[in-house]
């Protein structure tokens, strides 16, 4: 009925579709498969570490040279700025004291200070389709799956796999990532999801909220993974929907993921009940904002 050629073409097409479907399903399971891949990372990690450190060393020497040149020029500017900063600092100290007094009055519980573990980035995801990094700290140093990873500028991502001295961090710009967030100005809540090209989008923001370009997006702390109030990014575009309940909000993260060298792993996450959510690999259910 059919020629051999036709049958081969059909068989190949079916195989491709089955293969891609299986991969899509394995993609939805989200980082559950580690298997013997840890052995590879343990063997490969030290070499990545040496290679990365060598590059950083060369970069540092180069940077230091230009730094010294610009240092002399910036000294004068800095001196003026210091005077202004000292004046501001005095004002801020007063504000801080007032704030402390008011907090005491309202009987606010002081948040337990987080413990941070500094780690160096030793490798990046081999594919531009996925956004992750490998860091040089692992289970031996107390890093666990689901721990948040930050830098001073904001949230970096979440630990998704750990080995003895290494860990894989899923960046917030990856499409598998989800962070429960609020917009600082309007207090509108949503889920920050990775988009691409170093952009994120804030999903499930109700249309009734007025969002402006430049608004700051911070973590809400409700996902049980990221402590409340960590900076994520600023709103770079708002696309109001003509219909539906939600509006589309695009965010530019504060963290420059291409220039990131070191990160901080938050060893003591904000809430104990967040452990279960974090262990599942998904900080927040995207279906239920």
């Amino acid at each position, binding site marked *: 009925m059919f020629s051999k050629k036709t049958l081969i073409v059909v068989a190949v097409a079916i195989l*491709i579709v089955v*293969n*891609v*479907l*299986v*991969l*899509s399903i*394995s*993609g*939805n399971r989200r*980082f559950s*498969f580690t*298997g013997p*891949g*840890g052995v*590879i*990372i343990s063997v*490969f990690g030290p*070499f*990545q570490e040496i*290679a*990365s450190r060598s*590059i950083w060393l060369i*970069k540092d020497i180069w940077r230091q040279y230009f730094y010294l040149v610009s240092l002399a020029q910036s000294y004068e500017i800095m001196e003026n700025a210091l005077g202004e900063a000292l004046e501001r600092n005095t004002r801020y100290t007063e504000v801080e004291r007032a704030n402390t007094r008011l907090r005491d009055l309202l009987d606010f519980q002081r948040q337990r200070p987080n413990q941070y573990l500094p780690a160096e980035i*030793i*490798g*990046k*995801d*081999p*594919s*531009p*389709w*996925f*956004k*992750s990094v*490998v860091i040089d700290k692992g289970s031996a140093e107390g890093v666990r799956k689901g721990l948040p990873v930050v830098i001073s500028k904001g949230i970096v991502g979440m630990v*998704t796999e750990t080995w003895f001295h290494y860990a*894989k961090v*899923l960046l917030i710009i*990856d*499409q*598998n990532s989800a962070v429960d967030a609020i917009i600082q100005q309007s207090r509108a809540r949503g889920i920050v999801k990775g*988009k*691409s*090209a170093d952009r994120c989008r804030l999903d499930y923001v109700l249309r009734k909220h007025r969002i402006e370009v430049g608004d700051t997006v911070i973590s809400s702390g409700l996902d049980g993974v990221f402590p409340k109030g960590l900076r994520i990014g600023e709103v770079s575009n708002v696309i109001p929907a003509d219909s539906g309940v939600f509006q589309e909000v695009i965010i530019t993260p504060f963290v420059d993921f*291409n220039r990131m060298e070191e990160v901080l792993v938050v060893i003591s996450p904000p809430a104990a009940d967040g452990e279960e959510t974090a262990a599942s690999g998904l900080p927040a259910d995207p279906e239920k904002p």
Partner: protein
Amino acid sequence: MIAIFFLLNGFLLTLIQTSLLPHFPISRWAYDLLIPLVLYMILFHPLRISLPAVLAAGFLMDSLSVGPFGVYLSTYLWLLAAGRWLSRFLHTGNRLLIPFLIAGGVLLENLFFFATFLLSGRVLEPPPDAMFWIFEQTFGALITGGIFLAGFVRLDRLWNKWIARLSERNT
């Protein structure tokens, strides 16, 4: 001995791809450097050698990537199937043909990733600029792929000579 040759080269290329290239602005359109090596193993070695090489390369890349496990493994296996099939009709050792084979491999890998994203439903969305860097990577492979493959041919010869000399000395 070919296994050691493959492992050393694969290890080095993966190290360059994951730890050195990200420091340079070209990293986005730098294609998967294991493709030329995998294709070299497929086109210039029998199946009993190329199949374990393909499996090892796929497993290494899948372990290092955060993508769905098996995406690299599947891609390399399809490359193996396509390479073996093509070698029945074309003279795959032809120097003019090699850059196109590498570029085809890069294109196939990216299309495979693209399809995985598309068929995942709402979970993953192909990046909006994906088509642009698929083109960049394919073009990059077309320009440099041949150099890589020629390099592997030369390195393999040197490696075999060195091994032969070593075994002569020992006997």
